[in-house]
């Protein structure tokens, strides 16, 4: 029994180390930890209290190292506004949400999954019309995940959002499979993935998704996929997860949210 619990604990602790702190997982982990004894619990909580886990909650981890195409700072309380040519802009954001956990027995209630979205309004309602009220969990988890990823025109923003959703639904070779006609994009597949909480693609147009990929490569570099690919929270680890799993220390993105 102890061995089973220990293996389970090891797996789950790894998951937590890979991702943001999930209240659902943490609460599920605690009973198992207690069974193994207070030493483990103390070590774990001490690590957590020391801030190692809090690295995930620190927006600074998304600060840029190099970004050849930086965008201006983005305030989630302000509207994205217009670009220099007067074209209306749209925010692309990454936050956390727990909708899927209500639908699936596989997910612990309250588990927070990453969620990609776009909005023409401010992210937080207040000064301007906002996508979410300040009490919403999406606001709470905005700094935990990618935050405001950037802003661009609506067509490109839909392409960026769909590229990120497709990446976390079909894996890192989705672009190659999509272009070569091997991959049929489906919102059903998006609903079933446990990497992210999104339920559908905003566009299936290949030209639009390619425009989004182009934007991501420009602002986040050619390894943009590694920066936005989330390990499966509760699913079976894939080969592709093993080599690229981020840790709280090495998950710093190579580019600041363009504009943010």
């Amino acid at each position, binding site marked *: 029994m102890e061995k089973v619990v220990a293996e389970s604990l090891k797996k789950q602790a790894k998951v937590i180390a890979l991702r943001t702190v999930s209240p659902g997982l943490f609460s599920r982990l605690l009973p198992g930890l207690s069974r193994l004894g207070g030493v483990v619990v103390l070590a774990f909580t001490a690590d957590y209290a020391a801030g190692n886990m809090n690295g995930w909650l620190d927006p600074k981890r998304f600060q840029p190292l190099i970004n050849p195409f930086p965008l201006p700072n983005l305030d989630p309380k302000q509207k994205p506004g217009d670009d220099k040519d007067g074209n209306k802009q749209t925010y692309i954001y990454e936050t956390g949400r727990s909708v899927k956990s209500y639908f699936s027995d596989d997910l612990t209630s309250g588990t927070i999954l990453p969620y990609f979205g776009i909005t023409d309004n401010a992210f937080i309602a207040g000064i301007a019309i906002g996508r979410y009220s300040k009490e919403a969990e999406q606001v709470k988890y905005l700094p935990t995940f990618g935050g405001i990823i950037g802003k661009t025109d609506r*067509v490109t923003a*839909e392409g960026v959002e769909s590229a990120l959703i497709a990446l976390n639904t079909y894996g890192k070779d989705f*672009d*190659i499979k*999509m*272009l*070569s*006609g091997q991959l*049929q*994009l489906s919102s059903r597949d998006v609903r079933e993935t446990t990497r992210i909480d999104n339920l559908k693609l*905003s*566009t*299936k*147009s*290949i*030209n*639009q998704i*390619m*425009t989004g*990929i*182009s934007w991501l*490569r420009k602002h986040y570099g*050619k390894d943009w996929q590694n920066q936005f690919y989330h390990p499966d929270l509760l699913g079976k680890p894939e080969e592709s997860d093993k080599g690229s799993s981020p840790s709280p220390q090495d998950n710093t993105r190579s580019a600041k949210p363009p504009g943010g």
Partner: protein
Amino acid sequence: MDKIVLFGHEPEFAIRLGFTKTAKKFFLQLLVKGIEMGNFKKSDTLQRSLDAYQQILKKKENMCHPLLNKMSKDEIWKYISDVDIGMDEVMTRFDMLNESGVFPLFGRQFSNQQSRLILLFNSNILRFIWQNDFGEAINQASVEFAEFCRIFEEYKGYCKSNNLL
């Protein structure tokens, strides 16, 4: 669907506009030489179709690519989808063509399918090469640029005079 209005002639070039119960939301479909583009199942506003038309007017000279003009539709499709050359080269080609405006999006009415469109301009002819959805045939049809503009101006005038935008 409440009403459908057709601009142009289906065997040449036509725009099909479908009204919904929601104000300012419409179905939209293009017909090039009678072949449908879009499945007429998703509604949205019409502004983007007019924006795409304006972009084509502005960028038509950039949409002339001597290299692509000599290619068949299958060769062009391979040129924009050939992943064997590596994603860097694929993206270089995409950015070059996208910058010249050959990938117009006529509206969200066309984005619910795994569609792809390339539009080339040469000798006052617009050449459409497109795939409506995953696994479907790659279509090709051409229309005289003047005819394309005439139909789009008619559609644009109707949208404005009926306050559809």
